């Protein structure tokens, strides 16, 4: 599904290197957790996967189903099935949530040569997906993410993910700012989407989320590199001992 090879990337504006020779492979159907201390490059990695212009890849490659995606803009990547659930979903006053969902779904369908959804079909899909995530019709009537609480924003991200049916889901600190009830709703939403042909990259600072979204593999990111990989027990190890031991061992 995803293969990152010796990736180097920097902030385009000031040239600060954030990703320094990162290697990572995520197989079809795999749930990979990426953990690491603050400033290790976790969020940057998620933005680079989604194609944000503010970052510049200087070396290496990102292969998605065997093809480089570096030349694709964010919309083209999304259409190919890459989805980023934002750590801080963006508020857009003046764009109605429902209108946005419809445009996004239909633009992706159009780009893939599929027919646009009829309004009743669209409404039915949204209603079904929203119910599972405890998203009220009232919330869907508001402008996109405007006036949503932290938990509502995260649930709205998972709603979009469910509706767009991506192949590679990147969750950037989806647990931040969530209480335990909201965390369970979000985790259930993600688990419902697990399938043999869909991979998930869970970026998180804490092990807590991984109790609910149980990963197949865990990777520790430090100073823009993966310094250790393992199975879910690695996350427990980190929770118990912190990052210091692993960082020291890798140094």
């Amino acid at each position, binding site marked *: 599904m995803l293969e990152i090879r010796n990736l180097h990337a920097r902030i385009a504006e000031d040239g600060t290197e954030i990703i320094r020779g990162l290697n990572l492979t995520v197989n079809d159907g795999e749930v990979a957790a990426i953990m690491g201390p603050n400033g290790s490059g976790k969020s940057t990695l998620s933005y680079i996967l*989604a194609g944000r212009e503010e970052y510049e890849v200087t070396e290496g490659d990102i292969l998605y189903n065997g093809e480089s995606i570096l030349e694709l803009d964010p919309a083209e990547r999304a259409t190919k099935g890459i989805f980023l659930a934002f750590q801080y979903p963006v508020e857009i*006053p003046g*764009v109605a949530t429902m209108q946005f969902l419809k445009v996004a779904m239909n633009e992706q369908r159009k780009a893939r040569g599929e027919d646009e959804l009829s309004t009743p079909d669209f409404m039915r899909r949204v209603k079904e997906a929203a119910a599972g995530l405890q998203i009220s019709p009232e919330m869907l009537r508001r402008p996109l993410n405007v006036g949503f609480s932290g938990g509502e924003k995260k649930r709205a991200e998972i709603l979009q993910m469910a509706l767009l049916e991506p192949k590679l889901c990147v969750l950037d600190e989806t647990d931040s700012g969530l209480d335990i009830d909201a965390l369970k709703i979000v985790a259930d939403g993600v688990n419902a989407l697990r399938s043999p042909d869909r991979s998930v990259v869970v970026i998180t600072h804490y092990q807590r989320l991984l109790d609910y979204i149980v990963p197949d593999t865990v990777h520790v990111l430090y100073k823009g590199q993966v310094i250790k990989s393992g199975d879910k027990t690695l996350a427990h190890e980190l929770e118990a001992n912190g990052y210091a031991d692993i960082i020291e061992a890798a140094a």
Partner: protein
Amino acid sequence: MNMQAGIKLTAAEAALVDTYNEQLGDLPGDGATLLARDTLLSDLKKAGLPTRRIEAWHYTDLKALLRAVPAFVLGADAGRVDPIVPGSAVLSVVNGKAHARVMQEGITVRSYGEALLDGSAAGDLVARDSDDVIGRINGSFVRDGLSIDFEDGLVVESPVEIQSVQNCGQVNTRFPVRFGAGSKATVIERHLAVGKEAALVTSVTDVTLADGAEVTWIIFQSEGEADTHLAQFKAELGANARLRLYVINAGGKLVRQEIDVAVTGEGSDLTLRGINLLGGESHTDVTFNVGHDVAHTTSTEVIRNVVFDRARGVFQGQIRVAQDAQKTDAKMSCNTLLLSDDAEFSAKPELEIFADDVQCGHGATVIDIDHTQLFYLMARGVPENKARAMLVNAFVAEIVEELEDETLVEALEGVISDWLETHA
């Protein structure tokens, strides 16, 4: 001082004088009307069109910008179009010829041409002051229009659309409208072109809100790419009256819309929302003046501008608060989205406050598309051009949504997104 005899007229000034002399025989009016017209025209001839040295016209040098005056075409028929809001009661004005008709009970409509003919409108034909060039041109040439009266206590459910459609020539109209005490209504004043030939349009609307009247008035201007549109909207607000005024400019080559509101009744409120959708090589000027003359009145003004290509826009906004107008609350803002390197917008907010216990403020911003918002939309698969259009739309849709009436919001959002689709 600059009015000595023999001053050289520009081509447009000379054309205005010539066309007046040609039309003199069939401009409607009695002796008093004719005298009023003569005075306006000779003042216009003496002063000439205003240049940037006249402060009120500083950003719109009419003498330089108005290059020619298209010939008057008698009896041109531009036809009619569907109203913006389905189900509106339409009052049709075709190439300046108004069609007064019987409306629902409580609304009286009279032809303004008749009022000119019988001399009862002669008193209207005066200039506001020496800068009032729109009043002078319009008063010299006005042929028709509609006088509308909404009786006291009348509540009108569907909008009334005054539809002024033209396809060429000269169109000069007036619309005096009275809203009786406690009446409620929505009026759409629409000016549009259906042809490509140049036109010179002037229009003066004079609105009175009696005590407690609640009015939503929407001016929607979509003249053609070659057209000059010079318009005035004047309003006087009685006690506890509420005027919600939306001004949407989405056309024309040279546009000046003046708005003068006198807040003369205690407890009254003015809400002005302006949307300027500017493209091509057009020049659009919205000049607004509100006078708070009595205590306990409020006004808010929000202007949103979207400027593409080599278009230029101007907003001059003045809030005056008289000495007795204590407890006035007035706020004005002007936000501009500049979408090309050659696009231009000038904003000139002014506060003139003589009372000491008031809350007044103004602000102006110029912005570009927000990159984080653009990235977010694209990350969901929305292609860049479509994502940009959505964000531009959102910038203006925000103030349309304040209208709350769903049919009205939908209709206005429709015309705005149509414009953006053809210009963005």
